């Protein structure tokens, strides 16, 4: 992540104030662990201080029968509209950069 931020910072010739990431519920990434590691690593770079802004994305499925999109709660993956069991993930696996807040230098 920090390598990417450094590359973007150089490309825009700008000072980066914050980086925004999207983390899906099923990405396997724990926000607090990511924040802990991120802060620990940033300290030793010229990016410090750099804020990490995390947006959690819930697990959502889409029905293959009626195309309804819905939040999956308690692992209930069947479609709440038509009752079909044939649904597939629409979101929840994300581990993505969303944006950077930069200040032109």
């Amino acid at each position: 992540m920090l390598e990417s931020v450094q590359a973007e910072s150089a490309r825009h010739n700008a000072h980066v104030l914050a980086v925004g990431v999207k983390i899906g519920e099923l990405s396997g990434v724990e926000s607090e662990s990511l924040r802990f590691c991120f802060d620990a690593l940033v300290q030793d770079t010229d990016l410090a201080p750099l804020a990490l802004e995390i947006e959690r994305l819930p697990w959502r499925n889409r029905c293959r029968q009626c195309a309804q999109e819905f939040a999956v709660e308690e692992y209930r993956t069947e479609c709440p509209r038509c009752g079909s069991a044939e649904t597939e993930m629409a979101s929840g696996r994300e581990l993505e950069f969303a944006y950077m807040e930069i200040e032109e230098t």
Partner: protein
Amino acid sequence: MTRVPLERKVLSENDRLAAELRQGFLRHGTWCVNLISSPGSGKTMLLERTLASFEPGRRVAVLTGDIQTDNDAQRLARYGFPVRQITTGGACHLDARMVTNALAEWRPDAIDLLLIENVGNLVCPSSYDLGEEARVVVLSVTEGEDKPLKYPATFHRADLVVLNKVDLLPYVPFRMDLAREYIRRVQPDAEIVEVSCTTGAGLDAWRQWIEAKAGSSRKSVNSGF
């Protein structure tokens, strides 16, 4: 202050390498499976039984990942097929670069079936694409039937769940009906086989699953060129 949008995956480097691996596998007609489970659920034993059932000369190779030791590679090498240990030295999962490096000394067109045994861990391996065509999660009956609910990210990506050590069912309070229900809840499309590597029960079904998948992959390669 300006906000610059950056729609990009954090693991894009891994995904890029995994995509390269996948293209290579497709080109050479290699069918690759990634085995994931908690430590001690019997992945290595399952692979031993699998290798033992293959005829000599079968173009199969194994990569096996552990944090330390090459014990698993030594166990698996006895069956006469190429085996390479990936020692991660601390990392709790395999990533696409480790697989790329481990494959570098093998001729890619000499492997029809590549079995990858991931590091024993039900969390992190689920985030790392290794370029595989299928993911298998092994769950042994001594672990408890609620593992799919506790580690949904891993089970959600399973094409097949192997319920292992079923010979121990009389001795443990494991409810097979609940295990199947929990797997279905997290991933309705996953197939399920019940296996005992000790008695050999279910190993035929497991082999058939591999042959059906690997066979259809080869057919599509042949018809594609």
